[in-house]
């Protein structure tokens, strides 16, 4: 996973509540067998006409937001389907950080697995960041998001922070507990033998 430390870039303000993962990446693109290539379908139905033409009014079709690396949004971002295609599409478009007053749980987890930083800030702070002219800077070590005239500190779980900073492989971390896993399985076979199914 790509580490995340600091990021300075264009922030696109999509300031609506409950942006769901169907909106981020609709169903017709979920048949992919790979993680890459979904960026051009990000927000597909807001971004293109039914005939496939770009809708000029949509945020990400306008300069400078075509090159946005930060997305500002409303509460409960990423609600709905668990599809990891949503963070894959954001990442493939170039978005590395989403700032919102709150996130849906599954999407929030999926971000960290893909090197995307979800930042929780109050709506008023996000409104001020959206009003900034020029680039925003996200500084994960310092836990701040700032523009030319304002800056805000955000909270983040220290483990999550370390995972992003170092680009850690979560599976490798859990594999370090292999002895615990084996001991657990051995104990459960005795305590709850009805759970044993076929297989290895």
């Amino acid at each position, binding site marked *: 996973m790509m580490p995340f430390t600091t990021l300075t870039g264009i922030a696109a303000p999509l300031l609506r509540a409950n942006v769901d993962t169907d909106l981020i990446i609709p169903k017709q693109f979920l048949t992919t*067998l790979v993680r890459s290539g979904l960026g051009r379908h990000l927000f597909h139905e807001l971004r293109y006409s039914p005939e496939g033409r770009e809708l000029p009014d949509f945020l990400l079709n306008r300069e400078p937001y075509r090159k946005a690396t930060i997305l500002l949004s409303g509460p409960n971002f990423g609600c709905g389907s668990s599809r990891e295609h949503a963070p894959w599409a954001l990442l493939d478009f170039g978005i590395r950080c989403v700032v919102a007053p*709150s996130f849906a749980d599954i999407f929030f*987890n999926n971000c960290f697995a893909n090197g995307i930083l979800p930042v929780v800030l109050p709506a008023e702070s996000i409104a001020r960041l959206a009003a900034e002219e020029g680039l925003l800077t996200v500084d994960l070590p310092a836990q701040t998001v700032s523009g030319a005239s304002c800056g805000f500190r955000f909270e983040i779980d220290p483990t999550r922070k370390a995972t992003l900073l170092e680009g850690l492989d979560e599976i490798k971390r859990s594999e370090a*507990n292999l002895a615990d896993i084996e001991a657990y399985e051995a104990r459960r076979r005795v305590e709850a033998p009805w759970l044993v199914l076929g297989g290895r």
Partner: protein
Amino acid sequence: MSPRTLYDKIWDEHLVATRADGTSLLYIDRHLVHEVTSPQAFEGLVLAGRPLRRPGQILSVADHNVPTADREKGIADETCRLQVEALEANVKAHGVPYIPLLDDRQGIVHVVGPEQGFTLPGTTVVCGDSHTSTHGAFGALAFGIGTSEVEHVMATQTLPQRRSKNLRVRFEGALPPGTGAKDMALRLIGQIGTAGGTGCVMEYTGPAVRALSMEGRMTLCNMSIEGGARAGLVAPDDTTFAYVAGRPLAPKGALWDAAVAHWRTLVSDSEAAFDQDVVVDLRDLAPQVTWGTSPQWVTDITGRVPDPAQARNADEREAILRALDYMGLEPGTPMEAIDIQAVFIGSCTNGRIEDLREAAGIARGRKVAQGVRALVVPGSGLVKRQAEAEGLDRIFLEAGFEWRQPGCSMCLGMNEDRLEAGVRCASTSNRNFEGRQGRGSRTHLVSPAMAAAAAVAGHFTDVRRLEIRS
């Protein structure tokens, strides 16, 4: 030991290790896998040279992409077919139990798992699918995960987790006639909002929950995620045990007795502390219909489309205006005056035998209104077979409904069961998001009885006024 909630008990039983940073490693007993959220996980394992730790603890089945008509002829859409073939190749290569597409047991993962006895009380159940919350109906800690977590479970049979908050939902009173589990769920979500349960596991309690069948409890738990909670729980009881007993993968004999003895301890202690309590009064519950593009935007069938002018603030007003524009609705319109062109009865929310019986009770001896296309899609091949044994297929077909093969179908339209732009649908599914059933489609979430009533009336109508025929 201090009093614990049901969630606390399941958590404690599955704790493999607590790490120095305070995060916990939780053991996963059961893993359901489907074609859409698994290919990248299998690929990741192969690339890293990691074997699957416990392939026998997985049950896999294709459901999202599968055709619901003429399935014997194969999958026409190439990308859908390739994804199902990828699943078949992956499960074969890794020795994962799989239910083939033309098998009678095939169906939606969240219908199949319980049917096969794969889902058991007190277990941890995951799936790369947000409606995994369904299995909480058995008193299992069941939640949706992303594909990276699917890979994590395949490799380690564990997931790093942080403890959720305990939220108790107390349903007060009994369900009034004409209402059911779907109405309970929608009323709750309307009350707490679509993010009301974020960070929480919701335990459903109260006499109306106890009185629900397993099908009803699954409907209720299925919708937990629409209220923001990754998981919902109903403590197991005799209704649960009667459902599980004798299922192919359920324990038998002495193991069964030992299991039930343990499962009876899986209740929240009377003194257990909950972080939040929500009370939902069912005494005035009417059949529910959503009017907007979020499940929280719901009202009684006797209600009206809301007026944005009544919104609490500018943000809400703007959101309601956008929803009404998308839905093509005028403020103040009575819900019963809204015409529909499509009906979908099915999904992991309402695609079980009891749901089909409920809809058939309305469809019997009536006709689908002119200009309405109505689909009935059983949740599994076993549900389909049972329904046909009871003659429900004849009732639907004679009324003018289409009787389909099992799958996710029009709940999300990954197969060809999609709506055209502007088409309004009474749907027993779980999400009314923009574009969910097809670009520009307009979804109203309802119970199976209300969907069938809308089909025969051609508009939403109060099912309490219709005679139920059996």
